[in-house]
């Protein structure tokens, strides 16, 4: 075990870890924002409203993230129409491509998690809301959604961890995230085991710290839940 090389590589690896955290954090926030309306639509009784977003969630949950990344990054750039459009300055950058694909991906999974939770909200609470004359949107805002999100917390926490690990694929579209930096360093010093070992430890640390934060948040939000 070449500890010296690990020590030398550490600053660069930590830089990569920072990019990983950045990508995961931003894409999870965007994903959350996408997931709520999609979940509400998917939980609807109306066949059309519930099944149009199904195309979105089915595609993003049914295909590997790697395919989605390549399709979006290399595939979209194939067309002149895309390259000449106003979106090109954004799509040109690997960073934005990764963010968009990650956000859409986590949004789809989160939407299905929230949908399950929304449909699991005890009907008694909804009835009580209707009985005191709440409007539909108030009902959702004050009864359904808060309850659903609290129920979804464990599964949603899992999803964020999965996103953290999936972010490792960002290197395949030229981003220097933790895995990308690791592979680049190995390309020069050939110490595959040492470098992957170190990268693994850093991922474990990130996961561990996140789980601690999430458990505290769960405890706080579920304080008054019996």
């Amino acid at each position, binding site marked *: 075990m070449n500890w010296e090389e690990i020590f030398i590589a550490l600053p660069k690896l930590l830089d990569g870890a920072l990019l990983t955290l950045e990508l995961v954090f931003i894409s999870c926030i965007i994903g959350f924002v996408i997931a709520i309306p999609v979940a509400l639509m998917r939980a609807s009784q109306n066949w059309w409203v519930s099944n149009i977003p199904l195309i979105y969630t089915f*595609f993003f949950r*049914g*295909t*590997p993230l790697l*395919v989605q990344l390549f399709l979006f990054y290399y595939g979209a750039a194939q067309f002149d129409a895309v390259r000449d459009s106003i979106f090109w300055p954004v799509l040109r950058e690997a960073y934005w491509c990764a963010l968009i694909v990650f956000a859409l991906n986590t949004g789809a999974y989160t939407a299905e998690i929230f949908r399950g939770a929304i449909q699991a909200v005890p009907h008694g609470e909804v009835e009580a809301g209707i009985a005191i004359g709440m409007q539909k949107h108030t009902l959702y805002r004050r009864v359904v959604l808060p309850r659903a999100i609290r129920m979804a917390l464990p599964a949603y926490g899992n999803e964020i961890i999965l996103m953290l690990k999936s972010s490792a694929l960002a290197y395949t579209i030229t981003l220097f995230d933790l895995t990308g930096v690791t592979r680049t360093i190995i390309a020069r010093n050939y110490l595959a085991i040492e470098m*992957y070992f170190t990268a693994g430890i850093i991922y474990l640390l990130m996961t561990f710290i996140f789980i601690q934060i999430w458990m505290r948040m769960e405890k706080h939000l579920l304080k008054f839940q019996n």
Partner: protein
Amino acid sequence: MIDLQGFGPQIALGAWMTVQVAFGGLIVGLVFGLMGAAAKLSPYAVLRGVGQSYTTVVRGIPEILVVLIVYFGGEDIVNRIAESVGYDDYIEINVFVAGVCALGLSFGAYATEVFRGAIQSVPVGQIEAAVACGMQSHQIYWRITLPQAMRLAIPGLGNLFQVLLKDTSLVSLIALPELMRTSQSAIQNTKEPFTFYFIAALIYLGITTVVLVGQIYAERWANRGVKRASA
């Protein structure tokens, strides 16, 4: 229609390789999952520790890292084990085996939790009855606990298998010619990334759907004879 420019057969072979890797990983993963659950539920603290470390570590690092570490480090470990039991010849781990083992290792870590939950959900009364009948520990495990735990484990395992199917795309990054890699070969010659990645996506969706249907049938079969509370 979409012109595959002669790469159809290769893409089909790639899809078949994907399926093979997925099922290989499933078998290895089920083995690891059962062993892990047994370890975690064992009365020996050491075994519990090993089981806990396994699930924590493997669930905490990206699957792509597991694949890369198994591919590069796996051979060393296997050969050292082989040496210690006296097997002198060099054992080679090809990319397929490395991929299957890596994916199985990953699947197993999550499956451990699924099995553990399922085994713990088997009504205690059944175990008590088996003990009262004079059954041995291993008889109870194989004849009473496992069959009933399977029923409870199938939904969770089905979901994990879906994830496994998609993770097979990661072995393209160690150059196993599964669907993603063969698509890239095709793109190299035709320069049409969108066409081939889109077709790959459709094939994955197709495989996913078939597995989903299979999962529904498996759940129905496992639940035969079980009365359910009305939906």
